[in-house]
């Protein structure tokens, strides 16, 4: 293990509950600077819950979360986000009553180190489809367009860690390709990523390390290659 100072996020012994149901059972997770982590598991195993817990959205939680050296175990979601975490949620989270342009610029900000490379123009270049729909409301977009918007919006906050929960859902193969390229580019620029995606092969190919969740517990983890090679993987993913 690398010394802890190199981790931008360290979470240990994370538990989470929805009401009385105990969903996460003591998960440890660490993300290094510029590292890409894959999070795998079947439907309903707790991937999104883990993410939402790290972000502070699940209030019934337990465990310790250190983000960029600060203890965010009990922090509120906006405080976590302000530290430099961007989130592309499953189901997109586009604001239906805001236009595409407004969705993009409403929360845009410079990175903590003053980065401003994901400008409005660059996002529109990356997703030309959005450019044609600038004045449409979020609710009027097609599913894929919403997904692009959600990713673009996240990029415009210039995070140090970006969390993508099923970010390629509903995107055309060519665009998916673009997204993976963007992820590579992000990684190259030193931004860490946490990826959940149904295309586990792609995830394992992109990620440095990977975790596999089963019923709220980490059942397999390690370098992406090792995980990919593990015979148990197929079992855990049900393939």
């Amino acid at each position, binding site marked *: 293990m690398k010394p802890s100072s190199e981790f931008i996020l360290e979470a240990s012994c994370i538990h989470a509950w929805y009401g009385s149901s105990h969903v996460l059972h003591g998960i440890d997770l660490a993300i290094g600077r510029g590292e890409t982590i894959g999070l795998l598991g*079947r*439907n*309903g195993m707790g991937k999104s*819950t883990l993410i939402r817990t790290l972000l502070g959205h699940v209030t019934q939680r337990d465990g310790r979360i250190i983000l960029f050296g600060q203890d965010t175990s009990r922090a509120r979601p906006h405080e976590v986000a302000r530290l430099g975490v961007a989130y592309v949620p*499953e189901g997109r989270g586009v604001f239906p009553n805001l236009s595409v342009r407004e969705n993009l610029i409403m929360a845009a900000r410079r990175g903590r180190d003053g980065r401003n490379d994901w400008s409005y123009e660059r996002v529109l270049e990356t997703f030309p489809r959005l450019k044609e729909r600038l004045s449409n409301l979020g609710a009027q977009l097609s599913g894929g367009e919403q997904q692009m918007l959600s990713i673009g919006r996240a990029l415009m906050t210039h995070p140090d860690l970006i969390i993508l929960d099923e970010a390629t859902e509903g*995107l*055309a*193969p060519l665009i998916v390709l673009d997204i993976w390229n963007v992820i590579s580019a992000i990684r190259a620029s030193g931004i860490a990523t946490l990826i959940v995606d149904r295309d586990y092969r792609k995830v394992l190919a992109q990620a440095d390390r990977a975790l596999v969740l089963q019923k709220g517990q980490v059942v397999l983890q390690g370098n992406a290659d090792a995980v990919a090679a593990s015979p148990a993987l197929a079992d855990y*993913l*049900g393939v």
Partner: protein
Amino acid sequence: MKPSEISSDVSPEVLLRGREITRRWGGLLALSGVSLDLARGSVHAVIGTNGAGKSTLINILSGEIPPSSGSVELLGQEVTGWTQPRRARLGLGRSYQRNTIYPSFSVFENCRLAAQAATQRPWQWWRSAQHCDASLSAAHDAASRAGLNDLLDRPAGLLSHGQKRQLEIAMCLATAPQVLLLDEPLAGMGAEETERMLALLAELKPGHAILLVEHDMDAVFRIAERITVMVNGAVIASDTPAGIRSNPQVQAAYLGDH
């Protein structure tokens, strides 16, 4: 007629037919003159770039929104002016790209209510809905086909995203439609569920006409008999999977290196 004969028929029975469907959103031409036939016993995939108009097409075929022009024919009847519920009762089922479930009901009740559409009897106000065996068994059947057997009592709103996607399909099946319009049924599903869903589609294929909108090309090429490719509201190709795979135009516009 035996099922095997249906699939080998040279001119299969067309269950749903869309003719020259056009739809405008303000200045945007979301669909321009799209025609397609859905035959019993086949899976017809519609693929295309984001915003090509696939969901809009499903919305028009199912009666959710009216077309700007064009016509729809269902089971041999002209249904362009029909409402969505009326089309559904005739045998058309659809799923949504964005989850459209009853979050506060249990998973089972979600399915049961969908199944109830076939036997509505609203005037029988004194009989409990739970006493309608037809809808109960249809609901059980649909839920287990979609792999939700362990979650029947869970409020649907508390499901994970993938589980909701499964429920979405289950509700579509529960109405026992002859024509299925599935809008990205595999999106959000894990590898295991994807396999299950493909098996389910294969199982449903005989006797049903299925329109499949999907971005998962592996799945599409595995299961579809015919593929229509749309770009910016227009059909650029409609062919067998092999033909589509080798179509350079499609590769450039949509598939990339797939």
